[in-house]
């Protein structure tokens, strides 16, 4: 199954490797991973999509939380979250196809970042599924070159902070967590 994990991690050398190490040590394939700064310059945020064995889902979250540099980790797989991804797509164009293509771009709400005689470079954002279908649509217009950012996600619920360190470990269905909750 695909698990969507969001985490906040101290911005230190090796921190990324520690997190990915928990996943790769178990032989899991990381589908996508994004890392970026946060408002607090000492922290980075990460969003990981990873293909995991469902029985390991909750354990993974706890094992990631156990890492010394990890400040907060959330399993967003089944929770209300806002998830988005960006794609940069270069598509070959011919004068005959342009009008139709521009229509498609407009309908999807993508932006033309660069144009030249032979191609458009588009910037498109949306959910991963939306991008999938947009990109397959673009394929029908000719050969394309593409890069995707991987998903970024943020919890859809309003956050509450608590002093209990265990409160940082949250998961979507709470089943395995039940025993820990105070």
């Amino acid at each position: 199954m695909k698990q969507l994990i969001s985490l906040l991690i101290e911005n230190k050398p090796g921190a990324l490797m520690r997190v990915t190490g928990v996943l790769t040590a178990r032989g899991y394939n990381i589908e996508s991973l994004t890392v970026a700064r946060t408002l607090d310059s000492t922290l980075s945020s990460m969003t990981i999509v990873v293909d995991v064995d469902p029985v390991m889902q909750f354990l993974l979250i706890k094992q990631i939380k156990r890492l010394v540099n990890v400040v907060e980790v959330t399993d967003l797989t089944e929770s209300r979250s806002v998830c988005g991804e960006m794609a940069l797509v270069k598509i070959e164009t011919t004068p005959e196809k342009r009008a139709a293509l521009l229509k498609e771009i407009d309908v999807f709400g993508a932006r033309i970042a660069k144009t030249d005689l032979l191609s458009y470079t588009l910037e498109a954002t949306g959910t991963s599924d939306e991008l999938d279908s947009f990109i397959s649509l673009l394929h029908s217009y000719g050969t394309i070159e593409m890069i995707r950012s991987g998903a970024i996600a943020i919890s859809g619920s309003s956050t509450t902070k608590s002093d209990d360190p265990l409160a940082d470990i949250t998961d979507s269905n709470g089943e395995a967590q039940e025993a820990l909750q105070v």
Partner: protein
Amino acid sequence: MSVMSGAQILLESLMREDVEVVFGYPGGVTLPIYDVLYDHPLKHILMRHEENASFAAEGYARTTGKVGVCMATSGPGATNLTTGLVDALMDSIPIVAITGQVPSKLIGRDAFQEADTFGITRGATKHNYLVKDISELADTIHEAFYVASSGRPGPVLVDTTKDVLIANTEYRPAIQIEKMRGYELRIDPTDDEVDEAVEFLWQAERPYVYAGGGIISSGASDELAEFVESLDAPVALTVMGLGAMPTEHPNFISMLGMHGSYAANMGVTECDLLIALGVRFDDRVTGRLDAFAPNARVLHVDIDPAEMGKNRSPDLGIVGDVKHVLQRLTQRIKETKETQGRKNKEARGSWKERITGWMHEYPYSYEPSKNEIKPQKLIQKIDSISGGEAVMSVDVGQHQMWAAQYMRFNGPRQWVVSGGLGAMGFGLPAALGAQVGRPDKVVFALVGDGGFMMSLPELATIASNKLPVKIIVLNNGTLGMVRQWQELFYDKRYCAIDMDCFPNCELLGAAFGIKSRTVDKPGDLDEALDEAMAEEGPFLLDVKVTPEENVFPMVPSGGAVNEMILEQPKPVTVGD
């Protein structure tokens, strides 16, 4: 404030952590440290291999409860430490490893003796650091000790580049850590948790305590005894937990698991409440997981939240320091005893009788012999010398399991064992570290002939430091546990198990200047042991035991714990 070099700051920082000894091996990039050590009060023990430095640091930590420290140079020095780091990680033992790294400017250029120590040891440690800036050195060392010794203890490595070691700066001692972001610990249970747990306890008709290394890490032996006495429940210990409760304690029913006692394994199968304290439901304990305590509710106490539900989902999981949790539970049991204590009293009484019955039905046993020294007999003799007081450091294999079955321990931190990793070659260097930490104790290194050959060079360290370790080789001439599995599960197709060309230990001991003796007759054993004990310094005793003895009971790998092989299978006769 004074200006110091990185190497001076490093040693000063170790002194501030109350480090009294470092087990190490020098090399190119750590020369600046050794230059400061030249006239420094910190004691350094020169090992003969870095792997053994990490094992010695573990032996020290396991017997003293303090953080063990080992040190190695870059490249091969650091990679050699790794097995000991993983061993400490598996068994939650606090050690700090200091390694040198090539100068910052050379990192990534395949410099001489360069290895990505930070990367290699990432999965081998609880946490690790690469220090490339001298201003971070003192704080990093302090943080390393804090992380190693707090929460669930474990190994921490600090890799320091050579340029940091030789640079100079104003020394500012590290500020005491009170809290670290991203590393928060939960020590105390809540009132609700305590209430709910005690409700579980009183509801149980067949309670069973399964306790392990967490009791020893937490220093909760007294609390454990008080807890089980207030509840009058049987207690089985894991191999890591031995000594957490005195062997002679009336509630103690020995070890559980693959080579555990019949009573312990039957008890866990039949109990209706499994009280798991500082344990991790290791596969060598549980056997087939779905047949482990199949009808029991589980109350699991551990300081590591990631242990909750890792292998068995608890009905009630309490994350906290088991010492604190047990104090609260016992207090609550006493408060509620009057009103609740009568509940299930009869059922509990008959449960106790069943446990006692199992203990009498199948105690640990073996076929005695007049002609051969039985390995179990050897351990019983060592045990009677120890009287529950000695430190026993063992290697891995059959002798380890017999020692776990037959040795008595009056208290914690006397039993030194590579429990989780099962690292052969551990026993001798760990005994060395234990003797350094506990000069007041008799320390036995009980090793098999296989593991002994892996740690042979440390005879030099033992001799050189005049450490009075009593080294006893339980010598059956084969890799006994591998042989046992090949006999029982691989149709006796014995392969790669002969430890032939084993050295003559009398000559070997003499070569190192260690008094030694070989004994192969039962009649000579007492006198040989007496001689070993009478010797002031180290002694090497090579005991030739029955070659084809097996460890029983045995739960076959992946089997249910109540399906034990209790004794040597009888040969099948044709037509039977």
